[in-house]
């Protein structure tokens, strides 16, 4: 093994060597630089591998050959090695990225770069506080130099501000060092710790000064104005280094220093860190400059790690896993993002739309965002999971809330940005990206995936990247260059095969969900054949969602469940984002979903008491005092997905603006994830009381009100897909209501809804989507009279609305019948009234849907349109066939589920004797109904045909019109504001209270951000003052504690 000191000596030596090279050998100088950095990385890597695989023990390197206190020692453990590797690699990649700038600037710049990397490594490795000071100052000088690499001459100002603040910091640090030495008689950290120097005389204050100095290097809010300016103005490759390497080094320094101070200081550091995390994320909300935004994000992430460092004792054995996970994820992602920003010409966020020209860059951007937000399968995900659990184990509920809030805010602006990149800027001209820079970015992205794998291995949970489903989905990233129909076939085959293979392992409940997800998903994919071209990005996203869903239903532990939940959320987000106008809706979807997911995580953590590997079945044994809170958190999490009223505002836009075949996926299938969660919740936790209030009763009310308001809002939509979307809210309300009834039939009804809703909503979304495709509008009043032109779509909608409205003989009636039987034994009667009211309201919007689109007057411009594309019609016909079949023999699917549910409730099941289904209260024979109805219908139709077979077929204006004639189809088609009188009666219920509320919340955060960021005035002296004030305030607070 090469001694760790050569990491430093290589950097230093190469820097000196560069000085010896002729000025003109710039290219060669650059090669030397790269070689040095590569060598440094290699050394670090060799140590990392040694620690990881050879069981290498931690080593101390004695610089002068003697042990401390007589010489400086360096220490190399796993953490040091890994972080040094991070630093060196980001240095190497930045140097590669900076090639042009470095060659222009000459060898001095290269030397400074080497010194910077060396200094960061030194900060990590050294165990001597004065040596630490030296490396910090070296890094200051080199950073000061590297800032000048930027083309932006505002960087000058930024660099100078940095130097001003550094001066203040260095004064504090030197004073701290010397008085610590005075108190402990040594400069070695370990010896100082052993001597408890911080507890002796002036040692306490000295330690505080030293600590503040190193904390200041981690750029805590609010003493960090200088750092933001540097991020904004410096060369992006330098910012990458500064963010990834300097941040990493500073954090490790804090970690090292902190052990000296005893128990007083970690909470202070944790406070500073978490405050920075939340505050920087709030401030980030109102940023419009990409690099400055990255700066805020960087500060937030480092703040989070700082918080974890402060919480070292709390998180215990997982400390390195957590802090390291967040740190490396941040380092890789932030470096990658800065590198990306170097490829983007303009500095406003929407300018990142240019990345669309290169799928690799887009993939990298997505990876980085996922890394930062902490989505699976990246290290931040595992780390956050462990962190929250560790905190929960110690009952640090407030901290959990703060961390989750901060994470949500961060996700908000990052996802918003990603949305801009994907959707803004209509016509982009073609851009040529430098291959070298793209390669650097791609390396970082792949590094992120690699880290995801490593962290998965380290996590102690099943590695997500070993999951078949996820791998299959990720495989589509690789396949993305193939034509759409090939991918479509692979997807259908894959999902069917997956179902076939997994089929024996499912219990009846899982089987129902699995059929809908896998077979149902495959059925919807059939519609995908109508797309020509490659349809970039569609299949990875969709398959990611399906993978998440498939993983969800078989999850045994809370971790698997949550991971699957996040995977399906991410996949569906990408999927929704693909719609033409869907950018804001996709954002609100992901924000609500992540908020819900965080509630889940908190709930799981609370339930398990901080045990990170916790069986879902264990939810039934949650301690009594925690149980109601667990219930509430999980229920809220799941209800975000089912879009229960109040949490529903993301749904209409997300579903309505999605692509034609995406709407059925996200409506017909994705919503079921929430229901599955609720099933799981209620199956395990059952009835739970909070302050004497029965929570399932509350759920019943929420379900009922969702059903009512969802339906009611659907009535007044002019946009067909929005109508269907609101109707989904109502339908999910029904299902929630059924579940919350907590009786056998209620659950059966909910399951019936799961199946039915999938079928008819998918079908309706496809039909309406097909119509919208042909007519070029989703506004119903602009359609009309399409029945003769699109007969198959009409039939699909007709069957769909009959099924959905619950009119016999189709399957919707089965749901209603079970519902009535279920409420007979329900404990609470009042919410049932609301359900009664909402039932017939469904007729209103369903009739409107079919009437204003297919009936009434055909418009001029639609006279020549044809039936929807063949492949969109095919799945509709499959659904029609299924609905008819399911109407006749619902028992095929339901009786097994019925038997399965019986294990949860005593009595109340159905009897499936012969053709008649019997409950304790009534009976129902689908076959007889179908036959009787069919027979009557056929006889009457024959009679009418006999009478009217010679009827004259007339055209659309041949209507009686009070002796006048219609003017134009537009004025004759009664469609707009169809239920105007109804609005008079019920309009008051339709005020968008929920939207107002959430707008208010969002507005408040943005308002705070907008006001608070004015704190950073841009004046170097003010920043120095901030630093001093920060130190003072922290001291006062710490002393007060």
């Amino acid at each position, binding site marked *: 093994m090469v001694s760790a000191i050569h990491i430093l000596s290589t950097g230093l030596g190469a820097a000196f060597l560069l000085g010896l090279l002729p000025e003109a050998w710039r290219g060669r100088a650059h090669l030397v630089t790269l070689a040095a950095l590569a060598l440094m990385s290699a050394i670090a890597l060799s140590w990392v591998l040694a620690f990881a695989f050879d069981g290498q023990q931690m080593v101390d390197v004695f610089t002068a050959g003697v042990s401390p206190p007589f010489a400086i020692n360096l220490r190399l453990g796993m953490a040091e090695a890994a972080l040094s590797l991070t630093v060196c690699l980001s240095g190497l990649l930045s140097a590669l990225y900076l090639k042009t700038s470095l060659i222009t600037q000459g060898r001095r710049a290269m030397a400074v770069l080497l010194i910077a990397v060396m200094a960061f490594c030194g900060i990590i490795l050294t165990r001597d506080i004065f040596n630490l000071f030296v490396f910090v100052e070296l890094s200051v000088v080199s950073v000061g130099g590297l800032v000048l690499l930027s083309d932006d001459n505002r960087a000058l100002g930024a660099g100078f501000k940095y130097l001003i603040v550094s001066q203040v910091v260095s004064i504090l640090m030197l004073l701290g060092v010397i008085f610590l030495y005075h108190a402990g008689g040594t400069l070695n950290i370990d010896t100082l710790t052993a001597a408890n120097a911080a507890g002796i005389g002036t040692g306490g204050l000295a330690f505080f000064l030293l600590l503040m100095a190193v904390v200041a290097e981690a750029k805590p809010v609010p003493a960090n104005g200088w750092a933001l300016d540097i991020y904004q103005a410096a060369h992006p490759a330098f910012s990458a280094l500064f963010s990834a390497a300097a941040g990493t080094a500073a954090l490790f320094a804090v970690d090292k220093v902190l052990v000296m101070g005893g128990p007083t200081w970690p909470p202070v550091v944790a406070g500073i860190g978490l405050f920075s995390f939340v505050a920087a994320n709030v401030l980030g909300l109102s940023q419009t400059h990409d690099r400055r935004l990255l700066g805020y994000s960087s500060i937030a992430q480092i703040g989070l790690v700082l918080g974890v460092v402060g919480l070292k004792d709390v998180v215990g054995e997982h400390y390195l896993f957590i802090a390291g996970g967040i740190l490396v994820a941040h380092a890789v992602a932030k470096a990658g993002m800065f590198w990306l920003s170097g490829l983007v010409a303009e500095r406003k966020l929407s300018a990142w739309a240019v990345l669309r020209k290169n799928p690799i860059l887009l993939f990298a951007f997505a990876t980085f965002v996922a890394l930062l937000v902490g989505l699976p399968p990246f290290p931040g995900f595992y780390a956050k999971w462990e962190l929250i659990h560790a905190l929960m184990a110690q009952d640090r509920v407030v901290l959990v809330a703060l961390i989750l809030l901060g994470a949500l805010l961060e996700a908000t602006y990052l996802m918003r940005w990603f949305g801009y990149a994907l959707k803004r800027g209509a016509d982009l001209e073609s851009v040529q990206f430098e291959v070298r820079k793209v390669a650097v970015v791609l390396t970082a992205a792949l590094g992120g995936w690699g880290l995801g794998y490593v962290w998965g291995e380290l996590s102690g949970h099943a590695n997500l990247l070993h999951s078949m489903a996820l791998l299959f989905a990720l495989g589509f990233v690789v396949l993305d260059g193939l034509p759409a129909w090939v991918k479509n076939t692979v997807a259908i085959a894959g999902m069917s095969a997956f179902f076939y293979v997994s089929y024996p392992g499912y219990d009846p409940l899982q089987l129902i969900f699995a059929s809908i997800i896998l077979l149902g998903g495959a059925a919807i994919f059939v519609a995908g054949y109508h797309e020509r071209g490659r349809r970039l990005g569609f299949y990875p996203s969709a398959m990611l969602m399906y993978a998440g869903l498939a993983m969800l239903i078989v999850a045994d532990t809370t971790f698997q469940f949550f991971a699957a939940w996040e995977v399906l959320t991410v996949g569906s987000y990408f999927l929704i984002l693909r719609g033409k106008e869907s950018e804001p809706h996709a954002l609100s979807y992901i924000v609500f979903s992540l908020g819900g997911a965080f509630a889940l995580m908190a709930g799981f953590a609370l339930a398990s008491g901080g045990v990170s590997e916790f069986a879902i079945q264990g939810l039934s044994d949650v301690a009594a005092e925690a149980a109601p809170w667990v219930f509430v958190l999980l229920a809220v999490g799941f209800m975000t997905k089912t879009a229960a009223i109040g949490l529903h505002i993301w749904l209409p836009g997300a579903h309505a603006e999605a692509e034609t075949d995406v709407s059925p996926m996200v409506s017909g299938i994705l919503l079921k994830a929430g229901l599955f969660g609720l099933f799981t919740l209620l199956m395990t936790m059952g009835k739970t009381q909070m302050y004497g209030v029965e929570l399932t009763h509350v759920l019943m009310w929420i379900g009922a009100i969702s059903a009512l308001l969802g339906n009611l809002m659907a009535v007044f939509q002019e946009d067909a897909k929005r109508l269907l979307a609101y109707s989904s809210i109502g339908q999910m309300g029904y299902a929630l209501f059924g579940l919350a009834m907590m009786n056998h039939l209620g659950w059966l009804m909910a399951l019936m809804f799961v199946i039915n809703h999938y079928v008819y909503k998918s079908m309706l979304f496809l039909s309406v989507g097909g119509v919208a495709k042909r007519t070029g509008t989703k506004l119903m009043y602009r359609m009309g009279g399409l*029945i*003769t032109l699109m*007969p198959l779509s009409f039939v699909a909608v*007709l069957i769909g*609305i009959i099924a959905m409205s619950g*009119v*016999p003989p189709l399957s919707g*009636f089965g749901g*209603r*019948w079970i519902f*009535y*039987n279920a*409420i*007979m034994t329900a404990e609470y009667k*009042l919410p049932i*009234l609301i359900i*009664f*009211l909402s*039932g*017939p309201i469904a*007729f209103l919007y369903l*009739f409107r849907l079919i*009437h204003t689109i*297919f009936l*009434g007057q055909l418009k001029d411009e639609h006279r020549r349109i044809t039936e929807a594309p063949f492949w969109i019609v095919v799945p509709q016909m499959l659904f029609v066939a299924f609905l008819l079949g399911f109407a006749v023999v619902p028992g095929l699917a339901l009786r097994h589920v019925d038997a399965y549910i019986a294990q949860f409730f005593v009595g109340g099941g159905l009897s499936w004797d*012969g053709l*008649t289904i019997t*409950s304790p*209260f*009534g*009976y*129902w*024979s689908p076959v007889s*109904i179908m036959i*009787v*109805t069919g027979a009557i*219908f056929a006889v*009457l*139709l024959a009679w*009418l045909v006999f*009478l*009217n077979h*010679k*009827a004259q*077929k*007339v055209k*659309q204006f*041949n*209507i*009686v019109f009070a002796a006048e004639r219609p003017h134009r189809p537009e004025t*004759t*088609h*009664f*469609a707009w504001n*169809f*239920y105007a009188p*109804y609005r*008079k*009666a*019920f309009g008051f219920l339709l005020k968008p209270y929920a939207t107002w509320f959430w707008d208010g919340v969002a507005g408040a955060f943005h308002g705070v951000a907008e006001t608070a960021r004015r704190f950073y005035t841009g004046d170097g002296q003010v920043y120095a003052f901030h630093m001093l004030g920060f130190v003072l305030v922290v001291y006062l607070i710490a002393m007060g504690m």
Partner: protein
Amino acid sequence: MDFEWIRIPHALLTLLIVFLYGLLLGAVIQKIGARAGRRHGIPFYQNYIDLIKNYALRTTITHGFMFYLGPVFRLTGGVGLLLFVPTIYGVAMHENFSFAGDLILALYFVFFGSLGMALGAGESGHPYAAIGVSRGLSQVTAAELPFAIAVFAVALQYQTLSVTDIVAAQQGSVFNWTVFTNPLAVTAAMMSFLGSMMRPPFDVVLAPQEIPIGPPTEYHSAYLALMQSNRAIFPIAKMVIYMNLFFGGAANWPVFFLKVFLLYLFAAFVGVVFPRFRVEQSVRWFLVWGVPVAVAGLFWV
């Protein structure tokens, strides 16, 4: 369960009786209404003649496929509703096809005809038809509510959803009728009944002077004849449900005729006395008056 083919002629017999009685009853009720206006009114056999005439018209037009199916749906709804409920309690001949489903089937089958009719009317392309449907559906959401709650109350009261069982539970004495055991629920249900009978004050759907008779504006000849047949059958089918649920059912035809007549008369009586509500007024009326009564009836159980 073994199906006996004899049920089919039996059911047809029930249907025929109800059909003929329905036509007659319609005319009688109209005549009574006319008498309230001091007119003689139509002859009691007028509906038969009108029906024959409409079947005998020589020309028809069609607006399309759904237009054609509308009346078929409508009448299927009426006939089906009748046949899914036992007409005469205790007489196997007139239990019709009630083995196919219970009360819930009947409640939801009510919508079968309305929905089909609405679709047919929509296909005609006539704005008045659409306006009529819009009004009708709007009104029905509120009008059905007290009834639904009342049915729920009754089902809870008797702990069954089987119509036959509910009727059975009311036998023995007049005071076993639901109307005496749970008068509140029945009051609420009767309010809904008014709303579903297409008579004033809840006839804004047809509103002859305003949107020339709404949904059926374009229907004529045999289509209209089918719908007239439905007008004879459907209200009676509905009243059979009310009778069975609330008024002890009917054990033989004379009782049946009497009870149906009285129920019909009730709607006609209210209709003659009160003027028409606008949609939002009737919605409000049902919510303000009907629902609280129904809820009280629910908690009475």
